[in-house]
């Protein structure tokens, strides 16, 4: 799949933003006034920035409102509904925390649930696609949810759970790579089933339909950079999980140094997740590539 920057930015930032909103909704950290304002500004900035980025790849962004209508069948539509719901509910909850010094607990819980539901619906957009075996696995929602929770815990400064959530996210990442590498092979789809000619002999793509490229090849067959996949996996794993874990577990004294370490952990995690997300797209093989003798 073509790793479109808009989609990578969207899933990375909004995952982190909604992760933070989840913790804020649960009252973690318990902040009010100006401090709460800063936390909510970061959370809304990430979540909304991500959502805005996702409209950049649309052919007709001005019609995007129509995407809220088909929640009965479409995960993309459900994502839109959940995202707007989460932002509205958490916006109200933030008003209470920032300006009225009060926690509307029930509203916070609903907002937290909607935030997590947004991340889940995002993941299901990819998971539902049988055409991309590497995404069509239970581990795909696990990746999105565990990353979002780990990033959210890091940003929220939830010191008790952040190390555990980071470790879980790292483990899910390794499992996803291990299983994903075999996904296309075990899916049973190959050029034989694609053409229906497989029981006659070995099928080989002899001549493509045209000498130039096309939308399908540009969108679904991305081979550039796959050769560096193993190195990038190392980068993603170290930056995303190992280094942040090390930074938050290092015992340091002092308010400033502690915040510097936490900020570094967040930035490192963000860079790692973005790298992982790039691989998520770049390494995903769409079965239509088979028709072109590619993957």
């Amino acid at each position, binding site marked *: 799949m073509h790793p479109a920057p808009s989609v990578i930015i969207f899933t990375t930032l909004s995952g982190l933003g909604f992760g933070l909103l989840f913790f804020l909704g649960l009252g973690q950290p318990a902040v009010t006034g100006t401090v709460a304002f800063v936390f909510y500004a970061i959370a809304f900035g990430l979540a909304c920035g991500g959502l805005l980025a996702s409209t950049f790849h*649309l052919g007709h962004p001005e019609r*995007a409102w129509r995407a809220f209508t*088909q929640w009965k069948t479409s995960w993309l*539509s459900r994502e839109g509904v959940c995202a707007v719901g989460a932002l509205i509910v958490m916006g109200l909850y933030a008003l209470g925390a920032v300006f009225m010094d009060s926690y509307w607990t029930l509203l916070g819980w609903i907002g937290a649930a909607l935030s997590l539901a947004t991340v889940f619906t995002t993941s299901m*957009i990819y998971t539902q696609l*049988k055409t991309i075996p590497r995404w069509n696995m239970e581990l795909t929602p696990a990746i999105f949810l565990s990353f979002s929770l780990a990033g959210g815990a890091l940003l929220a400064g939830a010191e008790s759970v952040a190390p555990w959530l980071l470790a879980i996210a790292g483990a899910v990442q390794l499992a996803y790579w291990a299983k994903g590498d075999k996904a296309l092979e075990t899916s049973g*789809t190959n050029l034989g089933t694609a053409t229906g000619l497989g029981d006659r002999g070995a099928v080989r793509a*002899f001549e493509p339909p045209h000498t130039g490229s096309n939308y399908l090849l540009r969108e679904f067959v991305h081979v550039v950079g796959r050769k560096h996949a193993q190195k990038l996996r190392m980068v993603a794993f170290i930056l995303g999980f190992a280094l942040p874990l090390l930074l938050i577990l290092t015992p340091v004294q002092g308010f400033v140094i502690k915040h510097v370490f936490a900020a570094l952990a967040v930035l490192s995690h963000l860079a790692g997740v973005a790298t992982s997300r790039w691989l998520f797209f770049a390494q995903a093989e769409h079965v239509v590539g088979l028709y072109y003798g590619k993957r």
Partner: protein
Amino acid sequence: MTELPNSTDRKMGLVIDLDTCVGCHACVISCKGWNTENYGAPLSDQNPYGGDPSGTFLNRVHSYEVQPANGHAQLIHFPKSCLHCEDAPCVTVCPTGASYKRAEDGIVLVNEDHCIGCGLCAWSCPYGARELDLAEGVMKKCTLCVDRIYNENLPEVDRIPSCVRTCPAGARHFGDLGDPGSDVSKLVAERGGMDLMPEMGTKPVNKYLPPRPKDQIEEQIDILAPLLAPVAEEPQGFMGWLDKALDKLPGGAN
């Protein structure tokens, strides 16, 4: 709405004969010609006369080589367009309701005024039947020439999809695959029509007729060949002397 109809009154679709297709690409051209100036937005080209031309097509012809365990390799031309699936994933993933399947004839269409060009329907299609038009920013796909097949302004003979009308080899057939008595259904039953990627669970309406078995080429197929065989394998007499003399010249025998 992007909910699929429980059933459709008819299942209009194509039957493509892989035995007969000669790979001339006439269906590709006639499809582009008809559909660029009729239903919906034109099928744009990008840089058509430059170094890296590309464009939107609703029908493309691949060619595959099949090498059986025994015998000769076979070349099979393979036209591919929307299969108008009964369980079309491209319809249910659409967030706006632009993508829909008609209850009356099963044709899968895009309402281009509602399409936001997110591309998710193309992601969900295993066959590469949908292409996002770069000039228009909306999804394009085969309409089964919905603007021809019911068009009473056209002579009756032309009320079939453009690709079917054009095919010079008679490799493309159009009809109701939901009616077991239709010509296309009989053809599918007779020739063992098949689905592409049945494991995807899309239940395509369009069927492909597999190539008929080929004759086996025997050792000696030309009865005149033995009479034309060289009389002497090694040159004799003057030709023999000349052959040896030339071998001895600098440059040697090769």
